[in-house]
């Protein structure tokens, strides 16, 4: 039916999807199948789409994403563990015309940085918080985090998390949505094509809201840590759908601007 060969198809005129120009060519240090890579790619897509590469400042956390500054070609600051929202506050107040975002994991935002996160959100700083929640401390070998699900095994809870001993999993976005300083809270995932597209729209919205000076925008991305969970990338995605989504259901939690 067709007489085209691959060399006819593979030429720049027929391009439908390519890596964005904000993401540089360095191979990422993340494990195969890690959700961090997808979220980095989405951030690059949005920064390129909004044409704000020169006006964007990211704040890198401590955790697996500690080297985020190596992969996205924008200005970055490296914060002390958990202190990214405090540092982002300073950057945004000194340079109010910039788009400032923090990129934090659950150990960073929900454990050591709880106070900084809560107070930055309570003050209604006009920053974007990207919150990667995979339920464990991935970088240090899969220890139990505040977000670990009840019954979920980790290296420090080998028989599963127990309520009597370890308390309940902490749902930070729901907590932060109660604060008046927060204008947009959403929970997304990046396990399927549809979810990736929804997540891209959510992060774009958060960046647009941060320019309106109406308060803090928070995008939680429920992620997998296939190394820490000791699963294959595919199985980790299915495990996340079966177990994580009942505690962390996807969707918008708060949107005061469009509501």
């Amino acid at each position, binding site marked *: *039916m*067709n007489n*085209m060969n*691959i060399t*006819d*198809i*593979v*030429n720049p005129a*027929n*391009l*439908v*999807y*390519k*890596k*964005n120009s904000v*993401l540089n060519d360095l*191979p*990422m240090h*993340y*494990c*195969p*199948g*890690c*959700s*961090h*890579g*997808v979220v980095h*790619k989405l951030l*690059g897509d949005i920064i390129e789409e909004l044409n704000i590469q020169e006006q964007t400042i990211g704040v890198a956390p401590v955790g697996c994403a500690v080297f985020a500054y190596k992969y996205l070609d924008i200005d970055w600051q490296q914060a002390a563990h958990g202190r990214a929202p405090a540092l982002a506050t300073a950057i945004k107040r000194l340079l109010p015309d910039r788009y400032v975002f923090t990129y934090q994991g659950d150990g960073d935002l929900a454990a050591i940085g709880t106070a900084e996160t809560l107070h930055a959100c309570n003050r209604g700083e006009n920053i974007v918080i990207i919150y990667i929640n995979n339920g464990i401390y991935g970088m240090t070998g899969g220890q139990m985090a505040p977000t670990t699900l009840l019954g979920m095994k980790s290296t420090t809870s080998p028989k599963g998390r127990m309520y009597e001993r370890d308390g309940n999993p902490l749902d930070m976005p729901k907590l932060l949505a109660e604060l008046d300083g927060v204008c947009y809270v959403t929970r997304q995932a*990046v*396990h*399927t*094509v549809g979810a*990736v*597209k929804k997540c891209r729209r959510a992060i774009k919205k958060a960046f647009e809201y941060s320019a309106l000076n109406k308060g803090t925008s928070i995008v939680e991305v429920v992620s997998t840590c296939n190394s820490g969970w000791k699963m*294959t*990338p*595919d199985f980790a*995605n299915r495990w996340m759908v079966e177990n994580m989504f009942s505690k962390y259901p996807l969707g918008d939690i708060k949107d005061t601007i469009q509501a």
Partner: protein
Amino acid sequence: MAKLIGSIKVDIQKCKGCDLCVIACPLDVIALSKDANSKGYNFAHMINPDACNGCSACAEVCPEASITVYRVRV
């Protein structure tokens, strides 16, 4: 009726063989190669190039952004 013919190009040195594109592909175009790249990962490649319609599903889910997608309408 117009038909879409697609093709993908994988940056095999960046590919970590996570298998997510293979699962995301609705037309079973992609599989992991038996060969490995310089880091020892079995990279993704097209095993059924005629079936590809350039939907970009593989590229959307790729954590390494190593897939480029091309498409023509014939």
